[in-house]
């Protein structure tokens, strides 16, 4: 596949044959992927699959052995400062200057990214940090540290967020909150998000598209939330009637009933499946990407090691 310059410029993030070797080990091996503007791309892989190394190359923290990373068409290795200017990031654990207050941590980031003064108030309100602004970052709870890290990543008003395991060590409420925040950014501000995780269910409900990395290679890309490669799980009051409605209205076949009584529908978009069921008189009480299906696919790809 050839990629012309217009395509490169259109993409928020693009890697071309990205490779990184550590001695004999190929941590990342010829990775080709792209993230479109306004897309949430989930980067899934087991621990040690090459996710963090990829992200470090994307942000110019380490240099590729071969290949390149383009952020909005700008080569990170050649023009690092220009390339990372529209990017906010969180690499692995959320860290901050422990002896500085939340306000000072954000103020440093604001100044160093040349962001306007108002951006401080904006991110403080966004992440509900107002009651902590004068607290030292070292005294914050893990969840609030994560909020601070995200606030720092967003203070410059980035067009692309690169997040490495943002839900790490967070409790379920914190995970839901971050998920909601990322979706809101995507929906309201059109921000692209590249998010890595080893947590399959988390990625499945968050991402528009998923790339699976295994032993440094991108082994599969799939759309979720009703894309052509994913499956949608629905819960209805009457399975038989729902199957008939979906087959008749959308022409989809191969709908299967799960052990828990829900239906797995392949090949259709979640929204159109839901509309078809409701319009056909069915009662819908569950609609979600079929995580079990993704899970089995993931295990199949990665060999269940």
């Amino acid at each position, binding site marked *: 596949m050839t990629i012309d310059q217009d395509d490169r410029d259109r993409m928020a993030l693009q890697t071309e044959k990205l490779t990184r070797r550590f001695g004999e080990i190929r941590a990342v091996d010829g990775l080709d992927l792209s993230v479109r503007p306004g897309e949430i791309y989930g980067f899934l892989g087991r621990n040690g699959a090459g996710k963090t190394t990829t992200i470090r190359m994307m942000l110019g923290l380490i240099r590729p052995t071969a290949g390149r990373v383009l952020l909005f068409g700008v080569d990170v290795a050649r023009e690092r400062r220009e390339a990372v200017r529209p990017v906010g990031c969180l690499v692995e654990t959320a*860290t901050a200057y422990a002896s*500085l207050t939340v306000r000072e941590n954000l103020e*440093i980031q604001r100044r160093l*990214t040349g962001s306007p003064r108002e951006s401080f108030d904006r991110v403080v309100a966004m992440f509900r940090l107002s009651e902590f602004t004068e607290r030292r970052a070292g005294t914050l709870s893990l969840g609030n540290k994560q909020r601070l890290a995200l606030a720092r990543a967003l203070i410059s008003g980035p067009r692309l967020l690169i997040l490495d395991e943002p839900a790490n060590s967070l409790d379920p409420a914190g995970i839901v909150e971050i998920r909601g925040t990322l979706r809101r950014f995507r929906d309201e501000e059109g921000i692209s998000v590249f998010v890595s995780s080893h947590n399959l269910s988390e990625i499945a409900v968050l991402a528009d598209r998923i790339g699976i990395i295994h032993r440094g290679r991108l082994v599969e890309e799939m759309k979720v939330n009703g894309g052509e490669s994913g499956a949608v799980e629905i819960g209805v009051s009457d399975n038989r009637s729902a199957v008939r409605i979906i087959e008749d209205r959308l022409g989809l076949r191969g709908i299967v009933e799960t052990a828990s009584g829900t239906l797995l529908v392949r090949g259709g978009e979640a929204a159109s499946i839901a509309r078809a069921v409701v319009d056909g008189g069915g009662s819908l009480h569950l609609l979600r990407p079929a995580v079990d299906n993704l899970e089995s696919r993931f295990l199949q790809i990665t060999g269940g090691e």
Partner: protein
Amino acid sequence: MYLSNLYAELLKLRRSPISWILLLAFGFGPVVAATFMLILMHPETGQRLGLIASKAHLAAANGDWPAYLSMIGQMMGIGGVIIIGFVGTYVFGREYTEGTAKNLLTLPIRRGSLVAAKFAVCAIWYAVIGIWIYAETFLLGSLLGMPGYTPALARDALLQGLRLVPETMLLVTAPAWIAVASKGFLGPFGFTVATLLLGTALGATGWGPWFPWTIVPLDSGMAGPDVPLPGIGAKIVLLFTCAAGWFLTWRTFDRSDNLQ
């Protein structure tokens, strides 16, 4: 952008408890020197203090301003080399031990500007320490009513300080580079200890004026009045050491893998 970098670095330093602890620790030096002088000024009282009095007699012959300022000068020469090692180690190494280097290095700023701001803060920090030490020295000396003060003596001591402080600052880049290269504190701490040991050995063999970490102590007069102070060649060695350390720090920040 450089000013923003400088603002960030100064804020980090001002808020860090380490800055104040180091200032207090080094500030203890003039207190010890003044105590020795007090003992030497009052030998009959000092004899009752046993070991401390013996130490005081070993450190100086008389309890007066010339002996006191000479002791402070040597403290700045030898202690300064250790302190500047800590300063460089802390300012650069903390970014790795606190896990903040990965944030700093993903910012759209020149890494050269970042390195320059950090070195500027090291220099400011050490200058503050130097001012603090000399202010404390003169205050304590005056309070004790030490004999032998002359304006010329004070001027010479201050001129020595004005020479030693910048010379010592030039030694900050090497431990900073080790901190960046080893991504933490242990490497540069080991380096500082190694330079002290090596400096002692080289100082005894006559190679002192060519070894950067011996030059400042020699320039403080620690080798005694009969040994000439290091010449221009030694200053060039210091400048070269600083330039090499600066270049390597920048190069490592800019080019090496930043894994934490």
